[in-house]
């Protein structure tokens, strides 16, 4: 592991300045992923700018009913927060489905969004990986790829994004708040992560030096029925084979509001927009769910060994839709 300089930022402005002044710097939050990658030699920052003590540790309700989550709020605190549990259960459930208790205590909201894929070829310096070393090739495509993408992958990269939280944020139409030297901006959570295309080294739309300062949960889905479901190889501490986050509102037997996002199947949380369009305004029944999910998954391109993910993610989403619909008030 390469020697590095450690600096601690006291303000957001100081953090972005320190980053700009130290080429090859990385922001350090909980360190649950970055430090591992440094040990493996995958990340070799010259400087770590510790942002974990920035005043971004609060969950607050704003006057318009939206909820702002500071980027340094720990995953365990966010999952347990009453505002999140009451209004955005899908987010609380997704967080609790991720990692282990110890990791959730350390991991931050911003860091969770920026974690890297757990593709074993990405993590192994002795193997080719276009994400880690652009142009070196992809070891996974013809190799061991049961856990890899079925949607939106490219000839360059078949990795998945590992976050559970980000899948819920995509379904909640959350906004990611960024602070850079050019000022502040927000990006839709759903557009924050990228598809690999021919630049698999770029996981997100974040610009160099920009810092995630927070996540904004909009008022629209607040209080609507929502849920997250994840399938995995063991009961805890395993990444999703596939997952589904759903927000669903049914009135007078018609779907008034629906958001669906898949996890574990693509390079980013996969918003199932075709399924949402097919469902909106229609009946909340089995046939409609099946039709909508089939339409969404028509785009799936499974690899040699991961075709099981197509029925798996379909079943997960169908199950969550069904349960949410069943819980809707009848008129």
């Amino acid at each position, binding site marked *: 592991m390469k020697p590095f300089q450690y600096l601690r930022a006291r303000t957001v402005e100081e953090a972005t300045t320190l980053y700009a002044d130290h080429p090859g710097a990385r922001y350090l939050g909980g360190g649950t992923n970055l430090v591992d990658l440094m040990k493996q030699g995958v990340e070799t920052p010259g400087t770590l700018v510790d942002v974990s003590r920035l005043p971004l540790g609060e969950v607050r309700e704003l006057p318009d009913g939206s909820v702002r989550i500071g980027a340094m709020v720990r995953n365990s605190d966010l999952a347990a927060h009453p505002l999140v549990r009451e209004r955005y259960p899908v987010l609380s459930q997704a967080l609790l489905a991720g990692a282990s208790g110890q990791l959730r205590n350390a991991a931050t909201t911003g860091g969770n969004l920026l974690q890297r894929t757990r593709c074993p070829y990405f993590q192994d310096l002795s193997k080719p990986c276009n994400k880690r070393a652009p142009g070196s090739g992809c070891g996974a495509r013809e190799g061991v790829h049961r856990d890899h993408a079925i949607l939106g992958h490219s000839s360059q990269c078949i990795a998945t994004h590992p976050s559970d939280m980000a899948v819920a944020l995509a379904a909640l139409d959350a906004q990611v708040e960024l602070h850079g030297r050019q000022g502040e901006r927000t990006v839709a959570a759903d557009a924050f992560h990228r598809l690999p295309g021919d630049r698999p080294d770029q996981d997100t739309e974040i610009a160099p030096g920009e810092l995630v300062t927070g996540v904004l949960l909009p008022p629209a889905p607040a209080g609507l029925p929502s849920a997250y479901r994840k399938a995995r190889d063991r*009961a*805890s501490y395993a990444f999703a084979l596939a997952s589904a986050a759903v927000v669903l509102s049914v009135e007078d037997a018609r779907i008034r509001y629906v958001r669906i996002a898949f996890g574990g199947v693509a390079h980013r949380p996969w918003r199932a927009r075709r399924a949402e369009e097919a469902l909106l305004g229609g009946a909340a029944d089995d046939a409609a769910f099946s039709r909508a999910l089939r339409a969404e998954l028509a785009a799936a391109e499974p690899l040699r060994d991961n075709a*099981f993910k197509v029925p798996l993610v379909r079943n997960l989403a169908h199950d969550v839709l069904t349960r949410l619909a069943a819980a809707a008030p009848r008129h």
Partner: protein
Amino acid sequence: MPDIVATSSALGTPAERREGPDKVTGTARYAAEHHPEGRAYAWPVPATVARGTLTDIDDKHTRAVPGVVTVLTHLNAPRLAESDDATLAVLQNSRVPHRGWYVALVVADTLEAAREGAEALRLTYAEEPHEVTLRGDSPDAYVPEDSDGTSGEHVRGEPDTVHASAPVHIDATYRVPPLHNHPMEPHAATAEWQDGRLVVHDSSQGATKVRDVLAELFDLPGDRVTVTSEHVGGGFGAKGTPRPHVVLAAMAARVTARPVTLVLPRGDLPAVVGHRSPTVQRLRLAADPDGILLSVIHEVTSHTSRIKEFVETAAAATRVMYASPHSRTTHRVLPLDVPSPSWMRAPGEAPGMYALESAMDELAVALGIDPIELRLRNDTGTEPDSSRPFSSRNLAACLREGARRFGWAGRDPRPRARTEGPTLIGTGVAAATYPANVSPSRASVHAAADGIFTVRVNATDIGTGARTVLAQIAADTLGVPVERVRIDIGSSDLPDAPLAGGSSGTASWGWAVHEASTQLAARLAELEGDSLPAEGVEAVADTEGTADADSAYARHAFGAHFAEVGVDTVTGEIRVRRLLGVYAVGRVLNPRTARSQFIGGMTMGLGMALTEGSTLDPAFGDFVERDLAAYHVPVQADIPAVEAHWIDEDDPHLNPMGSKGIGEIGIVGTAAAIGNAVHHATGARLRELPLTPDRVLGCL
């Protein structure tokens, strides 16, 4: 053979582990936690080709790292004497027999510098084509020599002819993937040369063997080498014999003339400390309509490396289990460019009984006979292959007691008969067996004038409670309270003893401790009330010729495993709801530590069934799942109600304590019980482990 004296009070009680407080307070020191003055740290460098030759070493960047002391490669490492174990011939030549083989070692003042130096090393290889994929029908597989009755091929009668003409047949092939021991404490050693003496703290299951091998490799008399293994954080067979780390640490210490600590990185373990070979197992059972077995054919293919033959003796238990007039049990080994496999908890029995007990369940289903009843009908008092009577065999009692405790009676045998919403519920059973092994050992017991008795034996406590049970044995034999017994174990300077392995530690060490204690008690009785001499009185024992004497009996432990599973039809996820084991293991010497061993084995069996397994990457030749995030050992949430029970078994043909080993039988058959429960739940017979959603979902 003497019985335990009638005043027995310690054996059979749930004594707590003596070193428990040291471990939970962090004062117990493990191999890497010894801090000799001037200690240096080593970091190993694994090969990144699966087969070839190291052609160039550029270490200038490594040597430029501040703190790096030296870089060892085959060009400058000390020459080792020949050893039986080719995996220990590290840094002796430029050949790379598999990916992950160590080709260099960087030694530095700090762990960080050693690691940075290792990453800076530039190595060039002449790469050769490699093959790492196990195929059951490969013509390159051969039948290995049968040195101890557990390997090779055994044939009784005319199994193929009988199979072909029998009224009921099962012909099924089962696959078990590579499995990894992954003890919590990785392999580690701290080595130091003191005036020509080699002193090593090693994380090992048997320091006597490590001492002997180091003496051989470094061409030293045995009394110039001391190996201690005071506390060991698990091994599961992977620390049963010396592994490359201890040789590398000793080499580095010699070259640098400093103490050196080497802790293997977790991700290196799969390639350098052994693994359970994958197996392809074809089972053919033939029976009459009443379920009486007529012919049993068990053919096993496993892989081994190019440098060492290791046979996963998966058909060995089939030679023990059921009466059958005709039988063939065959092992075949396929050498590949893979890391060397080795022992992992119940080597042979664990994968073999998965296959046999799955096939028995298939036969029960085919015949419409209850699977417990089928096993009872094929029970036997004599070992089928050897025709020797069993010293004791209480398989039937375990099955019956397990059935009673589990609530087996009234089970609807039809698949998919029980559901809870989208969850299919099923129950399954499987038998277990493991040999009652024992080896010769030495031990001494000393009586001091102050009333303290000290037992000395180079036993190893790998977390099982060896100290505790040896104190119980000595206390009862001497007729003194256990508090007056001190235990000295874990050093090769103590009387020689075999390793903690093969479920034989307690039997082997305990026999010698019992014998020394018996002698000491007799000599103390001769004193007739006279006070002890100032230096005390000591008795020594060596069970060579006694413990390893041929027995007229086949000596094995038996057991039965029961599982209830829920299979989620939405996801294909299988979760065990209940796991229950009943064992017949002679006399249980300490119910607290015994229970821990049983449920630990069952948990490992659950992992084998549902979560554990790695993949050899055909293109790169290495195991892909190498850390504990990717190699899925069961977590707490996977372990539901898990119960271990045992029946009273009085067997006079074992050791003086009347015990059989208990460290491994818990993993044997557990995977089959779970797989059989999955069949009962779903109606699908899945014959390749682990039963992860990708394999299950399509069958629902």
